[in-house]
């Protein structure tokens, strides 16, 4: 071997702090997302895996979601209750509460739970399979892990996110009602009567659309991180951690964009 083709000793900053590294990582994630979307219509569809995963994601998210939704609705009700009293607009407490829960609180809670509970479980599961060589074995058996494992998981996350969003809307609104009427002495009639004063059906659809997109993002990021886990059990832990953080950041950013688009497309009620 001559001196020229002798490999360089790895340097301290070897590739780790390269300015283009974040670009490469985002590019890989995006390419993975495209692969997943391309594999979506491919037959045979893994209906069994899809049902199993839907059940799995639902089972790890439903209870925490309900438990988060109640205090979330309550906080909104408490804040609004005192605010509307100061402004002398108690009759609109119900209207504002529904609007806040439906438009923002519900997709955000869904996002947190889908990323934190569902996504981390998906990522840990795939990561553990990756380091046990199961993913490699599957590829060698001529089966695409994206089609066999990732697509059902992403679809499951999307479906569960939509359903969770409905759950949070109901539980949050009920929590708000309970706190406003029972604890703050608001009038039930006024609360209920003003329900549809500000909110409209488009708010609900927008909220569900957000949840659908959040589920898609959470599923894709979790699967990507899981399938790229490396370096033993610690690598899986790192992957789960990164997957949750990345999903949070993406979901909040996407939420901002979607909300801005929504206000451009749907005029507020009463205008």
């Amino acid at each position, binding site marked *: 071997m001559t001196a020229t083709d002798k490999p360089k000793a790895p340097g301290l900053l*070897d590739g780790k702090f390269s300015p283009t590294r974040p670009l490469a990582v985002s590019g890989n994630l995006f390419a993975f997302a495209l692969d997943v979307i391309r594999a979506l219509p491919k037959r045979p569809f893994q209906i069994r895996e899809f049902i199993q995963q839907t059940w799995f994601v639902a089972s790890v998210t439903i209870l925490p979601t309900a438990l988060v939704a109640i205090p979330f609705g309550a906080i909104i009700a408490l804040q609004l209750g005192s605010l509307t009293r100061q402004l002398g607009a108690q009759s609109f407490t119900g209207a504002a509460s529904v609007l806040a829960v439906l438009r923002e609180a519900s997709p955000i809670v869904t996002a947190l739970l889908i990323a934190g509970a569902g996504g981390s479980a998906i990522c840990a599961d795939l990561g553990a399979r990756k380091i046990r060589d199961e993913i490699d074995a599957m590829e060698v058996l*001529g089966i695409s892990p994206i089609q066999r494992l990732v697509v059902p998981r992403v679809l499951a996350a999307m479906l569960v996110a939509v359903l969770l969003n409905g759950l949070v809307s109901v539980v949050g609104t009920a929590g708000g009602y309970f706190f406003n009427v029972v604890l703050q002495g608001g009038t039930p009639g006024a609360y209920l009567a003003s329900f549809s004063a500000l909110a409209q059906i488009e708010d609900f659809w927008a909220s569900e659309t957000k949840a659908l997109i959040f589920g898609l993002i959470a599923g894709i990021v979790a699967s990507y991180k899981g399938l790229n886990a490396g370096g033993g059990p610690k690598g899986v832990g790192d992957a789960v951690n990164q997957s949750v953080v990345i999903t949070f950041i993406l979901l909040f950013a996407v939420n901002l964009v979607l909300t801005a688009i929504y206000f451009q497309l749907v005029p507020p009620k009463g205008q």
Partner: protein
Amino acid sequence: MGVAVEVSGLTKSFGSQNIWSDVTLTLPPGEISVLLGPSGTGKSVFLKSLVGLLKPEKGSIVISDTDIVTCGEHKLYEIRKLFGVLFQDGALFGSMNLFDNIAFPLREHTTKSESEVKSIVLEKMDMVGLQGAEGKLPGEISGGMRKRAGLARALVLDPEIILFDEPDSGLDPVRVAYLNQLIVDLNAQIDATFLIVTHDIGTARTVPDNLGLLFRRNLVMFGPREQLLTSQEPVVRQFLNGRREGPIGMSEEKDVAQVEAEIAALEARGGDSHNGVGPKGASGGEAVPPQLTPTEGLPERRGERRRQERVARMLHEFDETTQAAIRKSLPEHLLAQSDAGAFQPTRGAGGRHWAPEPDATPMGSTATAVLPRQDGEG
């Protein structure tokens, strides 16, 4: 008959770290080959490259007229159906029991009825000696059973090429002996091309038809087992004898002066034959022990027949000791033909070649494949 795997000029790096470069070898169809190499020389990377899990930067891997380094995703999945791979720990799916694990490829790739699947799975489990363990989960069984279950799963689609990633790791010597016998028996039964990556010298000495050694980011040597077992190449000698004296160091390479001093001290003590028994089945000297034969009652290995013919064709290109060792393994009529000069060596890199059986139908590109010889280097 198995499929030949022709690797040429293969180079793989991770970032700036070169794993190996310019690896050229041909796995002859239906024969058993073993790839040796110190830890960390990228043997597993080589296996993963063969099945397209990793993409080498340079070179080609041609399997039934398809270069899997450059071919598309779709084609790659098709080619992979020719492969059976036994991963180090079996790589069974943890959530399924053994039966479902082994049935998995059948259920995914074929439209066989459940009763057909069952009969195939039970047959393969019988082949690897796992009768009665269908309902067990991978977590509930021993490492040896996991390996055999992984092997059964690799066999279920009737692969043409089977790759073994350290089949001996984590097994006791008796189980390794059984597994080696199983490998030879399987080869006799299905006549597929086998590649075994291992550290176990006992396995390397007795199981394969061909041996190769990876070291210092290069394929040091690849050829008929006799070629390596009788080789005087310092790296090969050191590895096969499992001793410290030689170019292979604990973590990095040693400098030349130190190697020379060590070898001189070894020679002064009486050389390898004086050195006794090394770890992992390594033994002194350069004896070529007899190859394992299939269990009584099984058909003879067709790969062995083809190999005899192939080796006879290139007999006169080896050095004296290797020739003597090979002569012992060849039948009279082939030796006579070889000595009479009936075989014309193909002109090519190093002149080493193999040809399909004379009565077999030509297999296109495989007919002129060339075994590399690296004696010009090192």
